[in-house]
């Protein structure tokens, strides 16, 4: 049952992948028609075939796997010959893309995929005159189309309009929220199934212990003169124990199967609902041409609006934000960027200007690019006008673009200085920020302006880095995470009293995340070695100190009811695997909020021997020993970092300088001897003294330790702090 459901799910995923890649393939082929030797497009086609081959294998559709394999071979041949692709070959490949769509349709309909849906790949090479292989025309299946009105399918199969159903978007939101709740329950059930399995183990073990002790118990009962009734009770006990263990096992099996099934169904429902909320960008083309016409008419310009890639689908909320962002961009372009028809003629440009909006889907990001062929932005004119009004504008165009987008100057200032110029561009940035997107403004004088909007197609699912502060888990959207770093306090600098992380692009402020998010979170002082997440946006970067970086996950975002005003920095909540809830931090707001909190400062330097604090790496798989040694060493004035085994220790060594290593011998993964050998084998770490602390008292163990290159070998049985400290003092010297 389990595998059957997995199989079903893989088939659905395969169908989606086929549609997506057929679309990508069509785009590549269109581009190749214009430029038949474009190597990047050929590589992209090859990759498509390769990826689909793997996907078909994973889903166990062997006909498709072998068809993709021949497609791959065919493309590899063209790629390796590095020759322009013939138009007849492009024709064949278009039919192969159609074949992929047809295969997708067949899979969704629950039918097998027959090899005949793919064209004979050799036909293209025989020249244009070769007879076209018969491609079975896909017959529209209303039930399938209704369920998944996806764009690529629509391009080949017209959607029967009359069969669609109108639903208020709010109802879908409610439905998604309920589905998310169900998903949470399902994940909790899955977590509980592990507890049940532990119980089953326990019952099973207890049962076998009982059975093993029976042979000893019975003679004891004889000697003790147990009555018949007592014997009866004891034997009933054993019997019941056995049946308890058995029943528990059978229950656990059923519970496991149900929990898995539930988790899968809940995931499918959530995905399906999310897909229902998706709308094609095409919907914008209903209203925008009219807006452009009206704006152009009132400005006395002649403008032609072109769309491309409007089949890309995005979440309904994202589409709204996109619409909101596009209007100021179009308005600016028509009012300021595009010249009057007369001026254009003088410049040798066509009277009619072109305003082009293209949408593209790149993995998990949508790229919408708006270009005009107007005059671009006259940066010098702009700077002159600003400086006349007493404002300095950034000297380089990159920073100027940032300023125009609202990063540097308030819109009122701007509006009062230069009427109209740039007004509304901050609206673009705000609209994009709402959907976790970014804006980029570029221009080429006299050639045109390009505004690039980049955002995720859907808000409901979100990639986030999970970090912990104490026992609380927070989700930081990956789109704003620049990198994760290990900080050691002695490597930090101070700028204007603020702790900063030195960086090639200028110092990055270091702030404990707990300080920005505020109470009830408890902030730890900056000390020792720390983990920090560098987040960035709008030209600023901040390193937020967290306790731990746990994982990166695809999360389902749920809105937090409005009214929780205290949660300004939280964009929503996400349900985690074990059923817990992680607040999702609004990266944009978080970065802004840093300005409002007291700066983090470095700990006061030790008065004696300032800057000479030695750092010691304590390696032990026992938390108790680790903590004990850590407190002893810290009390003696050393900076201490810890690792839980040899492998972990090597990682710490890579990440930060350490003056001495104190290590246990018996540890999982990499023991103390081997850790020591690794340190001695490394040019970089060889000089670091290593002290092995162990329970192994045999002389050969001591010998082995010395052979491994340890500088000292202390016995746990005779362990006292004085001895450890004295040894360290001796090894570090002064």
């Amino acid at each position, binding site marked *: 049952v389990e595998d059957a459901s997995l199989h079903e799910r893989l088939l659905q995923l*395969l169908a989606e*992948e086929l549609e997506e890649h057929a679309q990508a393939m069509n785009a590549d082929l269109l581009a190749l028609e214009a430029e038949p030797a474009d190597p990047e497009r050929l590589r992209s086609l090859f*990759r498509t075939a390769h990826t689909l081959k793997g996907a078909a294998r994973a889903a166990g559709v062997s006909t498709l796997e072998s068809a993709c394999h021949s497609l791959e071979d065919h493309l590899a041949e063209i790629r390796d010959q590095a020759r322009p692709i013939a138009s007849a070959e492009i024709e064949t490949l278009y039919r192969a893309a159609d074949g992929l769509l047809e295969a997708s349709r067949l899979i969704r309909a629950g039918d097998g995929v027959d090899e005949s849906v793919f064209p004979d790949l050799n036909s293209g090479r025989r020249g244009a005159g070769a007879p076209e292989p018969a491609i079975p025309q896909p017959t529209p299946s209303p039930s399938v189309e209704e369920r998944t009105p996806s764009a690529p399918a629509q391009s080949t199969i017209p959607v029967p309009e009359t069969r669609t159903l109108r639903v208020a978007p709010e109802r879908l939101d409610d439905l998604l929220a309920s589905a998310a709740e169900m998903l949470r329950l399902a994940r909790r059930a899955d977590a509980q199934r592990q507890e049940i399995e532990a119980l089953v183990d326990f019952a099973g073990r207890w049962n076998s212990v009982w059975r093993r002790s029976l042979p000893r118990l019975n003679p004891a009962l004889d000697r003790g003169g147990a009555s018949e009734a007592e014997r009866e009770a004891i034997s009933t006990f054993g019997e019941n124990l056995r049946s308890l263990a058995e029943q528990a096992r059978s229950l656990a099996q059923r519970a496991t199967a149900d929990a898995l099934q539930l988790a899968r169904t809940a995931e499918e429902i959530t995905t399906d609902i999310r897909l229902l909320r998706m709308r094609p960008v095409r919907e914008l083309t209903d209203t925008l041409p009219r807006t452009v016409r009206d704006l152009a008419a009132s400005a006395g310009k002649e403008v032609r609006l072109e769309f491309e890639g409007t089949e890309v689908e995005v979440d309904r909320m994202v589409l709204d934000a996109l619409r909101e962002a596009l209007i100021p961009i179009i308005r600016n372009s028509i009012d300021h960027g595009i010249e009057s028809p007369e001026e254009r003629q003088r410049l040798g440009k066509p009277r009619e200007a072109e305003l082009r909006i293209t949408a593209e889907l790149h993995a998990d990001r949508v790229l919408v690019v708006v270009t005009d062929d107007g005059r671009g932005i006259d940066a010098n004119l702009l700077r002159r006008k600003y400086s006349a009004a007493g404002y300095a504008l950034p000297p380089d165009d990159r920073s100027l673009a940032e300023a125009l987008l609202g990063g540097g100057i308030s819109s009122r200032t701007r509006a009062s200085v230069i009427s109209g110029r740039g007004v509304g561009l901050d609206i673009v940035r705000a609209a994009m920020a709402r959907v976790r997107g970014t804006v980029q403004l570029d221009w080429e004088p006299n050639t045109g302006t390009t505004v690039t909007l980049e955002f995720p197609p859907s808000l409901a699912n979100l990639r986030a880095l999970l970090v912990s502060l104490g026992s609380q888990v927070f989700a930081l959207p990956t789109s704003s995470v620049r990198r994760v770093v290990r900080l050691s306090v002695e490597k930090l600098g101070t700028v204007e009293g603020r702790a900063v992380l030195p960086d090639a692009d200028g110092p990055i402020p270091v702030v404990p995340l707990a300080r920005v998010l505020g109470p009830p979170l408890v902030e730890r002082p900056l000390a020792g070695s720390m983990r920090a997440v560098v987040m960035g946006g709008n030209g600023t970067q901040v390193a937020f100190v967290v306790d731990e*970086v746990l994982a990166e996950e695809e999360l389902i975002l749920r809105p937090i009811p409005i009214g929780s005003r205290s949660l300004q920095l939280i964009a929503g909540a996400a349900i985690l695997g074990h059923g817990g809830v992680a607040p999702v931090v609004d990266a944009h707001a978080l970065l802004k909020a840093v300005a409002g909190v007291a700066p983090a400062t470095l700990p006061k330097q030790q008065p004696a021997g300032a800057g000479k604090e030695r750092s010691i790496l304590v390696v032990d798989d026992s938390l108790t020993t680790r903590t004990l040694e850590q407190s002893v060493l810290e009390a003696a004035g050393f900076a201490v970092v810890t690792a839980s085994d040899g492998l972990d220790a090597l*990682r710490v060594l890579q990440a930060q300088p350490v003056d001495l290593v104190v290590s246990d011998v018996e540890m999982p993964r990499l023991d103390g001897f081997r850790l020591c050998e*690794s340190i001695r084998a490394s040019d970089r770490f060889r000089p670091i003294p290593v002290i092995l602390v162990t329970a192994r008292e045999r002389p050969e163990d001591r010998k082995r330790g010395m052979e491994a290159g340890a500088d000292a070998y202390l016995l746990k049985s005779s362990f006292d702090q004085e001895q450890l400290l004295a040894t360290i003092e001796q090894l570090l010297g002064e």
Partner: protein
Amino acid sequence: MNKLRILVAEDSPTARTLLLEILRGDPRIEVVGTATNGADAVRMTVELRPDLVTMDVHMPGMDGIQATREIMIAAPTPILIVSSAAREDAALSLTATEAGALMVVPKPEGPSAADFEQQREYLLQMVHAMASVRLVRRWAPRPQRAHRLPPRPRAGPTHKPRVVTVAASTGGPAALKRVLQMLQPGFPLPILVVQHIAKGFAPGLVEWLALGSGPAVRLAQPGEPLLPGYVYIAPDERHLGLRADFTIELSGAAPIGQFRPSATYLFRSVTGAVGGAAVGVMLTGMGDDGVAGLCELRQAGAYVIAQDEPTSVVFGMAREAVRAGVVDEILPIEEIAPRLTELVQERPYG
């Protein structure tokens, strides 16, 4: 016991879902992240420090080979290449082992496949085995230090060798390639190789080893006579051996210590065919396959070389051979080919 923290890099949602399902079905494993391209795989490895990365070869943007290379520089982590075994793909995957990946396993087929269970088991077994391998940074210069076990070169082989036999496992393809490429043209002996590799990959291995310079490499065929300077690779699911008439023997006998082909089978069979007139070479690899056979081969008088620890990805089989006291010489990988050339020229024997 901590769970193994795994990062999965695979761009196809279908293939990724299958992998995740298999990995998550193992309670000792925790998937800490999934990447859909090479750049993300590198970034996430640095951030999350997983115990192992499963890596697809073809991905948009940065591919799996480049990602492997960068991970081995930025945050050395055991990498398992999960790839199709089709020839071009297999060769490409093995290139990833040169970049630092530990092992190549075939992409599992879906649950509709008849041997899905075995494929699942194999993948999990490899994940657990490879996650335990400790790694060093690729760019770190190899420390110039005395071998911990000092070489004990004898005067040389006691018999004039007629054949070279090689055993390799984890990290073996890249090591083998180095040895073969450095072998002098016109090397006069045939070379028999047992390399532990996932089912289906042996033909790809042959193709990959044959790329570029070096001797002719063949997938061993039953009954074919050994030719001087040729390299014979054991095929899938068959023991490679040598008959007394100096022809290839392929055997379907039971696996030895789970391995078929097994290095112990090869060494034993060669002992039977030519006695001590052979050189045994133990390259990088996990476990102890080959050690028992090597004891017999050495007993008969053969000369035995083991790859040293610093240049081995896993100093396992070679370490066991050293412990068993059957190794004449421990050499870094780049000195093995020149030494082989010397050995076949050394005189007098006996």
